[in-house]
């Protein structure tokens, strides 16, 4: 048992063939995952994707139905939570309401009989800049302060692995930004392995070295945040991490470094190394901010894909950029983000426009093209909002 001493450093975490079934449903289908020591790792996914279950399996609060959990190369699958050198920052913080802040932080140290628990607890509280509130009870603190106490209570134990279960979920946006930076700098300072579970893609991307996108109990894609964003491999990743314009068509030809895809009669070129599939029916995509808006047909040139003409059906201004949604006959809706370099929108609702993007910015997905609707799913919030708007407008016209 982990008594008397701290972990020397962060340890790597290995999940081998993990499966977790609950009565009535399977939370994790099959999971293999290695997280190197000292990294800041984010498990990103929608609610119910199995990310919190994964965390609880690592902490020992749940037992896997099958598979093994290894921490620092040692099999801990059979160990109880209090026998693992792992600490968790809970979503609800779970601070003990009957103890002072100081006693909360010292709790783990006392259980392991580590020398000078009070001194070390003060030290940890100084790290999160809350030492002056050591004598208070948790309910006398604000949400952000409670979150920092929960963090101090976990890192004071110098665990080999620190698990964070959506710890910033209850904070408001500004505080969350601040805490993200603080967490990141604390991780760099103490050098522990952090595993952060979140459904907030922005949070995962700004904080983590490596992000694993989880969906339906499996990891869809794993990599550095930039890599995931620039080169998503599945439609789920493409739409969960930011927005994407997706098109489906047949591959009509390929050269040594690119493939061309026929999208309703328009030839779109995607670099071979950025495409997961090189033949048959494929789904390709491009990020909205990579698109350029043109008021007249742009000149065809190698290295640039052009779609259009289409009509702008919605313009929404969001400060830094403006979002245009255009409908291109036969192809469907395309979303474009334009930086607001000039004041006012570049094009008005209803005007005829073309879009273009560098071939280098396109990507090809690994998914089998979904049967049914050919183009980008129209269940994203922007589309739903627009449908509502149109429904309301036609209703008003009728009245």
């Amino acid at each position, binding site marked *: 048992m*982990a008594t008397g001493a701290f972990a020397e450093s962060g340890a790597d975490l290995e999940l081998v063939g993990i499966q977790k079934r609950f009565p009535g449903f399977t939370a994790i289908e099959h999971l293999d995952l290695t997280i190197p020591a000292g990294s800041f790792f984010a498990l990103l996914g929608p609610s119910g994707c199995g990310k919190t279950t994964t965390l609880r399996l690592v902490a020992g*609060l749940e037992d896997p139905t099958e598979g093994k959990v290894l921490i620092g190369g040692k099999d801990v699958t059979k160990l109880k939570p209090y026998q693992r050198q792992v*600490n968790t920052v809970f979503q*609800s913080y779970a601070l003990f309401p009957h103890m002072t802040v100081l006693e909360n932080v010292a709790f783990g140290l006392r259980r392991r009989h580590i020398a000078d628990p009070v001194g070390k607890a003060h030290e940890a509280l100084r790290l999160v800049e809350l030492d002056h509130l050591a004598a208070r009870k948790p309910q006398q603190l604000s949400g952000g302060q409670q979150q920092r106490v929960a963090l101090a209570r976990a890192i004071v134990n110098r665990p080999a692995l620190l698990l964070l279960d959506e710890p910033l979920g209850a904070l408001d946006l500004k505080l969350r930004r601040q805490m993200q930076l603080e967490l990141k700098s604390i991780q760099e300072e103490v050098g522990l392995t952090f595993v952060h579970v979140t459904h907030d893609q922005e949070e995962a991307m700004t904080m983590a070295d490596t992000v694993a996108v989880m969906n339906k109990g499996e990891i869809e894609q794993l990599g550095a945040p930039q890599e995931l964003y620039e080169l998503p491999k599945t439609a789920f990743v493409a739409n969960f991490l930011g927005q994407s314009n997706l098109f489906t068509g047949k591959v009509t030809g390929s050269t040594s470094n690119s493939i061309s895809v026929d999208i309703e009669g328009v030839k779109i070129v995607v670099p071979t190394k950025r495409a997961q599939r090189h033949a048959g029916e494929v789904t390709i995509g491009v990020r909205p901010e990579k698109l350029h808006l043109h008021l007249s047909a742009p000149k065809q040139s190698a290295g640039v894909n052009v779609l259009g003409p289409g009509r702008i059906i919605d313009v929404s201004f969001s400060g830094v950029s403006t979002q245009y949604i255009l409908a291109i006959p036969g192809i469907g809706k395309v979303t474009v983000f334009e930086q607001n370099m000039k004041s006012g929108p570049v094009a008005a609702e209803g005007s005829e426009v073309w879009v273009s993007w560098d071939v280098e910015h396109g990507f090809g997905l690994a998914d089998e093209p979904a049967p049914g609707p050919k183009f980008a799913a129209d269940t994203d919030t922007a589309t739903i909002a627009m449908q509502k708007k149109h429904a309301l407008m036609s209703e008003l016209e009728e009245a």
Partner: protein
Amino acid sequence: MSSKLGLGKWLLPAYAIVALTFLMIPIAYTFIFSFNNSVKSNIVWRGFTFDKWLNVCNQQEVCEAFGNSIIIGVTATICATILGTMIAIALVRYRFRFRAAISLLLFLPMATPEVVLGAGLAAEFLTAGVEKGLVTIIIAHTMFCVSFVVVTVKARVSTLDPALEEAGRDLYGSPNQVFWRITFPLLLPGIIAAALLSFALSFDDFIITYFNSGTTSTFPKYVYVSAARGIPAEANVIASAVFFLAIILVLISQVSSAIRRKRLEKVS
């Protein structure tokens, strides 16, 4: 409008005063007659004296009955509180076969008429060949107190965030340490409330006790039996003392929680 308001202004307080007076008369009567210089019966006022308060145990039977009631109350409370707390935690925290059935069955002792419970138990003790006395009373009281403890403690357990216990385990607390350092202190207000309720119920119980006590006397049983030939003033002394003790306990808890609240406000 103003006349209506005027009516409401005095009608409600007047009603409250009448109701309170009505409730207080028997208590006041009991208290006043504990100072009666009575001889045999304590019905006619024979003059004021402190004798009965100073020498309660002159009337040996009263004191003995009172002592028995305390022994029974304390023992039954301890047994019922321990058992009931364990049952409450199990019912909220664990999923097992017959869980729903047990939850429901625990309500039965509360819903069943006491006469039926008392008579049933008496029959059981008779067939089992157990001699009636202090032990059978304690068993009977524990039985019906457990239900009340379970209900009271269960309410507290279900408001307890399971993440707190998980956090305790996560922070290297063994199951034992987690229970005594986290679960128990957080349940304590509920457990204390349950224990006080048990004691009050046990101390007060007459019907079930009457069926299962044999020759052993308890305070309520003594009062009932002696009512026929006149209750001695010593019984009034004990009843008044218990009443004031309860009032003092309530006052202490109210004052201390008010002080705690003030201190919390000051800090934050």
